[in-house]
């Protein structure tokens, strides 16, 4: 049980927030729990949820790769809520649990078939909160061999935001199933 009780869905009357919660439910990430908790702060809920959905499901980086990065970050944050959720879109695109585990724990292993660009992006997520000092000029020079500056900003902002929200949900003791 979360330290902050989620609002019942029928207590949320803002149509924009309800539409975003439904969008998250359809994607699978976040499910309605996140929206129902942040709905406690109605002015925060809409921009937070919109940004979370947009950063994950839109942009110019492969959604499957971002889904692996998101789960890697949630696991690193010790957040059971976001770590247990899965993107239905990524699953429909062919992302499997084996691929997710390989991406979280063994992406450097050449036998797992991650491209150099994917390895670099996964390393970005891995190092950001493990040892940000390693995300230095040399690291960004390597990233630029594989990704445009726009994609690097998309990835960096995605990492920062999703790790932050994972830490937030961890602090609430939230779990996916109530």
């Amino acid at each position: 049980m979360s330290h902050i009780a989620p609002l019942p869905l029928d207590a949320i009357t803002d149509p924009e927030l309800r539409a975003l919660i439904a969008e998250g439910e359809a994607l699978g990430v976040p499910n309605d729990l996140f929206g129902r908790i942040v709905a406690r702060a109605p002015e925060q809920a809409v921009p937070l949820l919109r940004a979370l959905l947009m950063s994950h499901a839109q942009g110019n980086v492969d959604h499957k790769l971002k889904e692996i990065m998101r789960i890697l970050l949630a696991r690193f944050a010790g957040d059971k809520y976001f770590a247990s959720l899965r993107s239905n879109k990524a699953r429909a695109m062919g992302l499997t649990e084996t691929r997710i585990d390989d991406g979280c724990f063994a992406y450097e292993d050449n036998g797992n078939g991650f491209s150099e660009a994917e390895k670099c992006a996964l390393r970005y997520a891995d190092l950001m909160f493990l040892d940000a000092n390693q995300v230095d000029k040399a690291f960004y020079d390597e990233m630029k061999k594989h990704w445009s500056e726009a994609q690097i900003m998309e990835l960096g902002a995605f990492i920062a935001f999703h790790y932050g929200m994972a830490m937030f949900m961890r602090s609430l003791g939230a779990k996916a199933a109530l």
Partner: protein
Amino acid sequence: MSVDPDAVDAAFFDELRKHYSDEEIVELGAFIGFNLGYHTFFGTLKFYPLFSPDGRLVSQAESEKLYGAAPASLQKPEAAE
């Protein structure tokens, strides 16, 4: 939340509720999470403020000298002289 997330437990929330509403706690928690992530990310980008402490528009090279390893804005007044 950042240094010892396990310390943010039920007892901690009971204490928070003595001072803040649920709405304010959610606002604070999301704000902290957001900043926790973005400040680490921004730190890796090594960009510096556009303005010096006295309000001049400065280059990134000059700003790095002003704010780099020991940002002037974080120094005690006597140390910043």
